[in-house]
C-alpha cells in the first residue's frame, strides 16, 4: 500500500509576512494584492478566528475584525519560500508533486524506512521548515494511501497538524466531511447533488448509479461513487513530468472601473507582452488567441484560431485588439484577460525563411535578453509609456508550473 503525504503550508502568504515582520506575529493580518486593492487574498490564523477568509472584501474584513492589518503581497517572497519548501521535502523522497504555491504531495512509499518511518519524516520536515525558513511558518500534513485522502487528511488538524486516514478510519472521516472537502468536487456539483437530496458521502454511496446518471449524465456518477469511497488511482506528477503547457494566459483586474480607451489598450498590450514572453521562454508558439473582458455587470469573451503560430506580443495584440473591437464594448471595464493557446514547440514548426520575419525573431531575442539582464520591461512597447507596467507574478495555483518550475527550481542561494 502506498504512503502519500499532502503538505499544506498554513495561512501561507500571511505567515510569510509575519515571519518577515515579527511585529505582525500574533496579530490579525490580511494580505491584499497591493495598496488600494479591495480583496483579501490571504488571512492569518488570527484573522481567520474573526471569520476573515480568502476572497473577502477589505471592508467586510474590517467589519469582522477592526484591528486587522493589511499588508501588500510580495509574490517573489512567497515563491522563494515555496522553492525552499520543495527543496526540504525533496530530501525525503524524489517522488514529489508541486500542487500549488503552498501544497505538495510526497510519495514516501519507497523511502519511509530510510528515515525512521512516516511520522519521523513528518516531524523532520516540520523541524526543517522551522529552522531553515522560519519558526512562524508551519505546515499541516495529511497521510494516507492515495492523493485524495492525503489531501483530505491535511485539513483535519490545522494548523501545524498531522493526521492519517487509514482504511479503518476512512469512512468515519468521509461521512463527517462536507462534499466539497474532497478535491474534485466543487460548489456547482455540490448544488446539483443537493437538489437530488444528496448532502454527504454516506447518502451518495446509497444512491443507485443509474439515478445519478439520469440527472448528471454519464461521466460524473462513476467519479462520484469513487469519491464516496475515497478511491483515487491518480499518480503524482513529478516536476520533470509536468505535461507541457497547452496555453499561457494573464489576467488583470484594474483598480477601478474604466472607460479610458488608452488604458484598456495599454493593459491589453501589456498582458500580450507577458503571454508572448512566457511562450518564447518555453520555446513555444500558439495559434489560438483569446481575450476576456468584464465590467459594469457584463462579460464577454472572444477567441480566434489562426493557421499560423505566434510568439510575438505585437502580433498577438493585433488579434486581441481586433477581437476586443468586435465586442463593441459599451460601459466600464474592470477585468481583462489574454491567452495564447494550442501551444506547440517551435522546434516542430516550420522555420521562417523570409528575411523580415527572421529579423523580427532576432529583435525579440535581443529584447528578451535585455529585459532578462536589466529587469522586466526595461524595454517595452511605446503604448505602455506613462502607464503602470503590469509585471509578471506567481499565482497561488502555480498554473504556469511548466514555466516557473524548470527554470527556477532548486536555484536557491
Amino acid at each position, binding site marked *: 500500500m502506498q504512503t502519500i503525504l499532502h503538505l499544506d503550508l498554513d495561512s501561507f502568504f500571511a505567515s510569510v509576512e509575519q515571519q*518577515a515582520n515579527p511585529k505582525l506575529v500574533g496579530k490579525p493580518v490580511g494580505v491584499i494584492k497591493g495598496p488600494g486593492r479591495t480583496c483579501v487574498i490571504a488571512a492569518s490564523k488570527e484573522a481567520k478566528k474573526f471569520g476573515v477568509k480568502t476572497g473577502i472584501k477589505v471592508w467586510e474584513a474590517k467589519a469582522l475584525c477592526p484591528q486587522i492589518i493589511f499588508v501588500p503581497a510580495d509574490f517573489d517572497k512567497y515563491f522563494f519560500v515555496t522553492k525552499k519548501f520543495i527543496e526540504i521535502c525533496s530530501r525525503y523522497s524524489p517522488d514529489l508533486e508541486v500542487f500549488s504555491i503552498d501544497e505538495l504531495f510526497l510519495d514516501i512509499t519507497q523511502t519511509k524506512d530510510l528515515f525512521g518511518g512516516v511520522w519521523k519524516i513528518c516531524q523532520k520536515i516540520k523541524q526543517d521548515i522551522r529552522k531553515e525558513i522560519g519558526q512562524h511558518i508551519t505546515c499541516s500534513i495529511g497521510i494516507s494511501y492515495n492523493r485524495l485522502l492525503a489531501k483530505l487528511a491535511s485539513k483535519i488538524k490545522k494548523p501545524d497538524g498531522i493526521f492519517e486516514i487509514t482504511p479503518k478510519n476512512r469512512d468515519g472521516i468521509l461521512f463527517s466531511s462536507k462534499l466539497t472537502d474532497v478535491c474534485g468536487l466543487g460548489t456547482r456539483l455540490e448544488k446539483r447533488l443537493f437538489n437530488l437530496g444528496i448532502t454527504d458521502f454516506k447518502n451518495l454511496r446509497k444512491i443507485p448509479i443509474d439515478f445519478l446518471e439520469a440527472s448528471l449524465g454519464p461521466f460524473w456518477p462513476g467519479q462520484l461513487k469513487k469519491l464516496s469511497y475515497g478511491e483515487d488511482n491518480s499518480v503524482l506528477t513529478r516536476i520533470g513530468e509536468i505535461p507541457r503547457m497547452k496555453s499561457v494566459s494573464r489576467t488583470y483586474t484594474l483598480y477601478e472601473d474604466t472607460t479610458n480607451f488608452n488604458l484598456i489598450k495599454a493593459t491589453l498590450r501589456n498582458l500580450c507582452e507577458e503571454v508572448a514572453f512566457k511562450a518564447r521562454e518555453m520555446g513555444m508558439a500558439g495559434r489560438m488567441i483569446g481575450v476576456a473582458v468584464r465590467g459594469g455587470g457584463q462579460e464577454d469573451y472572444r477567441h480566434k484560431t489562426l493557421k499560423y503560430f505566434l510568439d510575438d506580443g505585437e502580433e498577438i495584440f493585433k488579434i486581441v485588439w481586433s477581437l476586443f473591437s468586435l465586442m463593441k464594448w459599451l460601459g466600464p471595464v474592470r477585468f481583462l484577460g489574454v491567452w495564447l493557446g494550442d501551444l506547440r514547440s517551435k522546434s516542430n514548426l516550420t522555420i521562417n525563411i523570409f528575411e523580415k520575419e527572421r529579423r523580427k525573431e532576432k529583435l525579440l531575442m535581443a529584447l528578451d535578453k535585455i529585459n532578462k539582464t536589466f529587469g522586466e520591461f526595461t524595454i517595452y512597447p511605446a503604448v505602455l509609456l506613462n502607464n503602470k507596467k503590469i509585471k509578471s507574478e506567481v499565482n497561488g495555483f502555480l498554473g504556469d508550473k511548466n514555466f516557473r518550475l524548470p527554470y527556477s527550481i532548486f536555484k536557491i542561494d
Partner: protein
Amino acid sequence: METEILEKIKVLATFENGQLRPVVFQWRNRLYKILRVVFSYSKNIGKEKIFYFSVGTKCGVFELAFNREKFSWELTRIF
C-alpha cells in the same frame, strides 16, 4: 506600520556554510548590532540578485538588502 528608507548602509557580515549573515550595520552614523536574522529571501531583478534580511536589533526590526552585482547594502525599511 513600516517605513520605507532605501538608504545605503555599511555592514559587517559573515560568510559561513554557504550563507551570508549580516552581523552589524551602520546607518546615519549609528551602529546597530543584529541580535537575530528572523527571515531572509532573495529575488532577481534582471540579472541582479538581491538578498533581503529581516533583522532584529535592540532598536527594532529592519530589512536590509544586499545587491550581489553591485556589492552594496541598503536599509530598505524599518518595521
